[in-house]
């Protein structure tokens, strides 16, 4: 620990009490990484504030000391957005778990950032409401993390992302000011850019979320196809028919195999692909469209269609899909989870190319995706005991992202850029695009202390005149930033 950080730790212990400041190297190790485990950095110190006011105090102390800081919720992020700085402070929101207000008449709730996503739904479900964003980590991920990452989930096809379900946030800005950002107040929609900024524009200390009425009816079916093409045809036909399902998920043969090995989900044997389609809404509407969807799946060549008769049967259908990521651990010693997006209509071409990439490299790829919105989650399998295997897997994983960009898609649909994909940003955006985005960052965080090194491969020196840069970046030279 540098002297600067030591003094900061002492100051924070006075402000927050000694039990809220962790400096013990063994305990610090718990916080070395988030859900992206191949990037690790032990923070210089970890603080566990009790409320928003303490977060503001911490940020002000960090700014005064010139020490970088990173906020962390439950640490389930998959792009290293909460990767700590070895020379900085990690602010963990796990003690901010209070649901402050439930206002059913106005269809909203006010929660602290450490509140678990599913706990919001649990609290309002008796009133006939739920919190719509449903990332697969929803049993453990925090609302603050959802705000940072603009989390989606299987049902965002119909209901949108976190950005559509946050009405306002109390935020500690990077210079320690406490402000209220809202979508409909006068002035710029700073909330709109704050949500999804991966913790680089400040720390949310209170979040007002929109609550959604529980639909009258939910209908779910599982359709098994001989090949992935059949499934793809069905998805296109459903969308073309004007149906907006709550979710359409697809799994290929390899991911089905993994799910079977792991949770015995009992999907139809011999399936080259399964499609899960869920419709929800008013009864008359759902019944009509469900019949349509079933017919379209049959036309596209589904050899078996199972309709969930009740919630238990629905849970069984979803079990295989929800366990898919963890399940590949059963068929491969190690794997990478990729997250890319393509225009949905490019699905057949992109999947064929992924097959080729897999054959050329000998690296197995299991495909799980949110088919309705073209969000792919290829799982790239490898044996970490085999020399060079990890690099080959990284190679295939990167090539898949290039494929997404080539087809006009995105390098991330929901996991975020974090540290993991900062180096891919220049393939998707021009220097001017990235420079322009960083104008926002410079407005919020001119000192560059709030979660530095994330999203952007090259930090912009705030205050500089836009244009071509030469030589070593000044922030790099000062040791304030790294290049990825």
């Amino acid at each position, binding site marked *: 620990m540098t002297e600067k950080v030591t003094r900061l730790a002492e100051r924070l212990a006075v402000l927050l009490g000694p039990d809220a400041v962790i400096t013990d190297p063994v305990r610090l190790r718990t916080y070395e990484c988030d859900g992206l485990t191949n990037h690790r950095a032990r923070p210089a110190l970890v603080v566990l504030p009790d409320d928003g006011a303490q977060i503001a105090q911490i940020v002000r102390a960090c700014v005064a000391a010139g020490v970088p800081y990173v906020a962390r919720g439950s640490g389930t992020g998959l792009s290293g957005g909460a990767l700590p700085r070895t020379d900085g402070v990690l602010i963990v929101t796990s003690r901010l778990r209070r649901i402050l207000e439930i206002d059913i008449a106005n269809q909203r709730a006010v929660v602290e950032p450490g509140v678990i996503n599913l706990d919001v739904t649990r609290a309002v479900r008796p009133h006939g409401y739920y919190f719509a964003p449903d990332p697969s980590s929803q049993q453990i991920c925090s609302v603050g993390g959802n705000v940072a990452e*603009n989390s989606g989930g299987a049902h965002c096809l119909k209901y949108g992302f976190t950005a559509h379900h946050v009405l306002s946030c109390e935020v500690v800005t990077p210079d320690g000011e406490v402000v209220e950002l809202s979508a409909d107040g006068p*002035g710029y929609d*700073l909330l709109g*850019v704050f949500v999804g900024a991966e913790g680089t524009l400040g720390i949310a200390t209170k979040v007002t979320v929109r609550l959604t009425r529980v639909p009258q009816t939910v209908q779910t079916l599982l359709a098994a196809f001989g090949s992935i093409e059949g499934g793809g045809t069905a998805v296109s036909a459903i969308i073309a028919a*004007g149906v907006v399902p709550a979710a359409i998920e697809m799994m290929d043969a390899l991911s089905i195999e993994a799910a079977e090995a792991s949770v015995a989900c009992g999907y139809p044997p011999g399936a080259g692909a399964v499609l899960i389609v869920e419709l929800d809404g008013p009864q008359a509407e759902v019944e009509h*469209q469900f019949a349509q969807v079933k017919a379209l799946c049959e036309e596209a060549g589904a050899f078996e269609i199972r309709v969930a008769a009740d919630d238990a049967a629905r849970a069984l259908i979803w079990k295989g899909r929800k366990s898919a990521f963890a399940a590949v651990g059963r068929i491969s010693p190690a794997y990478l989870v990729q997250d890319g997006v393509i225009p949905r209509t490019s699905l057949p071409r992109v999947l064929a190319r992924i097959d080729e990439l897999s054959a050329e490299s000998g690296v197995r790829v299991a495909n799980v995706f949110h088919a309705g919105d073209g969000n792919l989650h290829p799982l790239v399998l490898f044996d970490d005991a085999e020399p060079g295997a990890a690099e080959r897997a990284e190679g295939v994983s990167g090539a898949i992202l290039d494929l997404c960009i080539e087809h006009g898609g995105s390098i991330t649909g*929901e996991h975020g850029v974090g540290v993991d994909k900062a180096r891919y940003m220049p393939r998707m955006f021009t220097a001017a695009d990235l420079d*322009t985005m960083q104008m926002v960052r410079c407005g919020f965080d001119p000192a560059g202390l709030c979660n530095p090194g994330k999203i952007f491969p090259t930090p912009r020196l705030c205050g500089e005149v836009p244009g071509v840069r030469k030589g070593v970046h000044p922030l790099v030279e000062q040791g304030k930033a790294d290049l990825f």
Partner: protein
Amino acid sequence: MKALEAVCADVRPAASGDALVAAPASVEEAAAVLRVAAEHGLAVIARGGGGRLGWGPPPSRRDLFVDTRNLDRVVEHAAGDLVVKVQAGLRMDRLAAVLAESGQRLALDAPLPAATVGGTIATGAAGPLRHLYGTPRDLVIGLTIVRADGEIARSGGKVVKNVAGYDLGRLFSGSFGTLGLIVEAAFRLHPVPAVREYLTAVYADADAAHEAVQAVLHSPAAPSAVECATIPDGIAVGVLLEGATGRAAQVLPLLGQGARVGDAAPEWWGRYPEGAVLIEVTGKPTALPDFLRAAPNLTWSACGHGYVGLAGETTPAQVADLLVALRRIGGAVVRSAPAQIRDAVDVWGPIPALSLMRRVKDQFDPEHRLSPGRFVGGI
């Protein structure tokens, strides 16, 4: 003018005053125009259809209007992906016509007839469909802008699900031309519903109307819009149900006796209230009865957004008093008003995070040449 003519084919003097108008026909031409403006230190006002040019305080300087209406192409309509990319000067009604050929729509009402895509985004305009689909911030998936210094910058893309980089689409929605010139936008689309049903009822008092609105909101009806408006007969409530089948029978009882179903929108639907003074109000859904009692002429979307119209003969003092009353209930911003009223009242009300907004503005437009003075806090 010569420097502008060298980069843009359509340059002319403005109808009044000394200002010039440039109407670029491509993104590159727009960028060249803004570069020339930067070199000459010109204050630039972006304009589309012009329907909301009078909204907000008048800019303190106006040297050059950049008219986007020559930028009117549909760049790409990927019908199978439910995505469209268009240039900013395309009219909203023309876009709707193009999309309708494929049975699709941009789920965004255009309350003013000649509105362009760019103007709609820049003013954050929306109508009754905001209830289910939100406003431009929720439907823009990619945005191309020209910065004050003439650089072209893109954010987002042409896929709906995308979290790569900051979302400038949301930042620019409702920014009134003060951060940059919007030149292209990609939107997420929705299918045109097979059936549309408008359920309407009229109530004698605010509480009865509010009760009906709350009954619909908390039912599983999943309406596309729930609107409320003061009309000569009382307070009208309208519910729009859209989908593959008719569902009116299920919802009609919630509106009480005398409720009707029709397949056309009632006459008052999705309009700004009449009057020379237009005030935008925001609040919680339960603010409705208070707003109804405070304002003589209100239109309201049940999600918490509305407008108050006032006659031109209202005095500045009366408007100021009304603003105080409205701001006890929620937010109230004067959008348009005769100069003598606008100059005499606080048009914005409290602005949280203003210093942060100023810093963002300073980054995008350090010389304050983009619609200077038109926005909150004199931005």
